[in-house]
């Protein structure tokens, strides 16, 4: 039995229950896509890239009244402890759907009828919270690509470990803890766009977790905005801030 909260109420990596891991973000890291981003949340490392709006391929997926948004969440074989087999696992297929639905919520698809926007999320290293870090990066990449959105989505996971509701759970907390609840929000609209739960929480605990997540997500959106600002200054002024 792994003990996840010590006598001082601190977590195995020394964090307080409501503390995020260190986050690093950068926009515009890949040249050949129309928008891109890189994110690190603790040991989790993810690239995201966006292509479009562009012509729909294959053609029969085209929609007359709005753009099609496609999304692929994919992990590198070496991103996890046990080498992941090549090809898409069922988990990756599900998360691709969940991420797509969350992003479709905020992107103004009606502005681009008969077009397609592709979002690719590539997990280079997984240390917990890959779907939430992934959607944060994807949203930043969409902004970098200049795709109009109702809000920039940001995300984190809350969890329950040793009976305590904690923010931004890491891999060990995910594995040995009692619950993992990834949440993505459109923070300015105060609305959830992605929500899942694996594990047991009472409705009260979920409410507490959502509040915790809500605050953190506002902070993460600030980091996104800063990343965009850095990217903008570099491009505008030609020098790093």
């Amino acid at each position, binding site marked *: 039995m792994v003990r996840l909260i010590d006598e001082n109420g601190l977590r195995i990596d020394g964090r307080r229950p409501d503390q995020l891991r260190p986050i690093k973000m950068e926009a515009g890291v890949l040249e050949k896509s129309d928008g891109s981003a890189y994110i690190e949340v603790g040991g989790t490392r993810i690239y995201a890239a966006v292509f479009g709006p562009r012509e729909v391929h294959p053609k029969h997926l085209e929609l007359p009244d709005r753009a099609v948004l496609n999304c692929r969440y994919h992990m590198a074989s070496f991103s996890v402890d046990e080498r992941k087999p090549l090809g898409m696992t069922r988990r990756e297929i599900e998360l691709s759907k969940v991420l797509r*639905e969350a992003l479709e919520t905020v992107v103004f698809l009606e502005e681009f009828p008969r077009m397609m926007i592709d979002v690719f999320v590539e997990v280079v290293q997984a240390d917990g919270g890959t779907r939430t870090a992934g959607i944060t990066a994807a949203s930043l990449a969409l902004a970098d690509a200049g795709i109009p959105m109702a809000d920039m989505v940001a995300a984190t996971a809350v969890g329950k470990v040793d009976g305590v509701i904690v923010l931004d759970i890491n891999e060990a907390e995910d594995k040995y803890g009692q619950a993992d*609840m990834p949440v993505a929000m459109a923070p300015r609209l105060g609305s959830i766009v992605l*929500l899942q739960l694996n594990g047991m929480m009472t409705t009260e605990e979920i409410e507490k977790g959502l509040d915790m997540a809500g605050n953190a997500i506002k902070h993460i959106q600030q980091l996104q905005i800063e990343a965009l600002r850095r990217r903008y200054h570099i491009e505008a002024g030609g020098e790093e801030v």
Partner: protein
Amino acid sequence: MSYTAIGERGYAAKITRNRIYELLREGRRIDGREPLEYRRITVKTGVVEKADGSAIVSLGSTKILTGVKVEVGSPYPDRPNEGVFTVNAELLPLASKSFEAGPPDERAVELSRVVDRCLRESHAIDLESLAIVKGEKVYMIYIDCYVLDYDGNYFDTSVLSAVAALMSGSLPKYRVADGKVEKVEGERIPIPLKTIPVSVTIGLIKDMLLVDPIPIEENVVDTSIIAGYTSDSVVAALQKNTPGFMPVDLLKKALEIGKLKSQELRGKLLESLGHALEKQ
């Protein structure tokens, strides 16, 4: 690769959406139900004797067949003293114009994983009591859900169907003799369950909530949430599905509704199962 679904929302849908919303405000549904009313549940168990457990559960016209098959195999190396179970779900093309033949698409994969989540995270199946020889031989339970007729809400119906198949099913008994595992012919033991998970699907249109949506509603809801509850009304699984905003306060309301509806559904399931098992 997940693609925006064709025809998920069209122009005509907007008119329907308004109509459904206006009805909801009056406390009604397009099929005559109240907003928080489930359709009629029917349960038939023991429908496939070759399975170790089976059930057809209907929610209105939605009809899902689950079969449970038990094998003996090796445990996972990191869980040597636990049995193993696997959930698979298929959207059979005979069930709906919107399902296609071929390998499971992302909807079927999501359904499998949500049913799995409801069972696994609620610790419904007592995996530790499924070890036959610790570290070596364990029961492996395959739970396969087939959608036979699709009139909306495959999530809740599948969970009910899987639970009904497990509760009405049984395991062949094994004896260990001289280090060898052998079947005790004719003897069977119940599948050990620790809780009875039930999921509740709640749709949202603007500020109104509804449960157990039918396809015409699924097509126009702003978004929806599937919540799985244990017998103690603890939430064990959540899945927001359908693109759209879910305001936090409405989510909280939905979870409270889900708690009540899950108790109601579980009651009806147990009642039906009682009848069904008597008949069987």
